[in-house]
């Protein structure tokens, strides 16, 4: 893709790395930071917590109508049933894609994102292009992601500017009848739970 402007950081990657090292080492020496705690946090969010969690929530909702109802009524409690609680997921709202409505989530002011179900956000979600355009031209943004929503459908954008965190429940794809929850979960992409993608159809290459 084109990069019309030069990123300041391209010239000084080692500077930021040294600065972070400096701050960390100073805080550790002053007894204000436990480096082993950083290691544990990184491990949790790099290796354990991720969109596979949200995919299980979605698959369960597709397979179990009563669960889906609970999920849409009280997202926090229903997601907690599957154990996906914690930082940046304390107060959850789940929004359902239907034949009439396509949902899309953004945080225009910073990068708010439901960590326990989706892990940490991709860089594009946190950067200016998505944050600025998602609210004013969601259909243009969706086209960039390869998704076309018909004019007869409503595109509903959710700006997570307070402490509620949003998860999109994508539509269950055609041809997925009879699949078990594990197989259903495999169809659910991270992007479909943000609302910039759709769930995969069975057998589709992605």
């Amino acid at each position, binding site marked *: 893709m084109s990069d019309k402007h030069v990123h300041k950081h391209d010239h000084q990657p080692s500077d930021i790395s040294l600065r972070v090292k400096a701050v960390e080492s100073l805080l550790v020496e002053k007894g204000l930071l436990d480096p082993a705690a950083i290691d544990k946090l990184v491990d949790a969010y790099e290796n354990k917590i991720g969109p596979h969690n949200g995919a299980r929530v979605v698959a369960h909702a597709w397979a179990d109508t009563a669960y889906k109802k609970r999920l849409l009524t009280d997202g926090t409690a229903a997601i907690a049933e599957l154990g996906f609680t914690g930082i940046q997921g304390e*107060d959850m709202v789940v929004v359902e894609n239907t034949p009439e409505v396509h949902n899309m989530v953004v945080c225009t002011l910073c990068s708010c994102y439901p960590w326990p179900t989706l892990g940490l956000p991709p860089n594009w979600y946190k950067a200016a292009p998505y944050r600025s355009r998602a609210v004013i031209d969601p259909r243009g943004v969706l086209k960039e992601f390869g998704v076309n929503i018909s*004019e007869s459908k409503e595109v*509903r954008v959710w*700006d997570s500017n307070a*402490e509620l965190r949003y998860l999109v429940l994508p539509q269950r794809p055609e041809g997925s009848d009879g699949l078990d929850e594990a197989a259903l979960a495999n169809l659910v992409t991270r992007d479909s739970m943000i609302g910039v993608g759709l769930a995969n159809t069975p057998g589709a290459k992605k």
Partner: protein
Amino acid sequence: MPTMFAAAGVDDLVKTGGSCRVSADVKPRFKPGAKVLVRNINPVSHTRLPQYVRGKRGVIQHDHGVFVFPDTNAVLNGEKPQHVYSVMFSARDLWGAEAPEKDKLYIDLFDDYMDPIP
């Protein structure tokens, strides 16, 4: 004064987090279905009210309950707990007649960000 958070507490911290919801007995100013006019406030300090909805008309969809108010909490001026609502705006009301007719924007607004429209 800040303290050191130990590695032993990380698992619990990750699983528990820290909700900003507070159980204060605060009355809501709005009910679902109410029409609202977003206040045109322009504080130099922190706010979670983006410029693009200020002065716009929306409709309350849902009351999320009572949360810490970021605008005052950011400057240690108290938690000022109040209701937060999911508020719906039409794309055309936000962006003009060229916007798609059906599209909507939902955003979470605090009591202090809005006034009622009769």
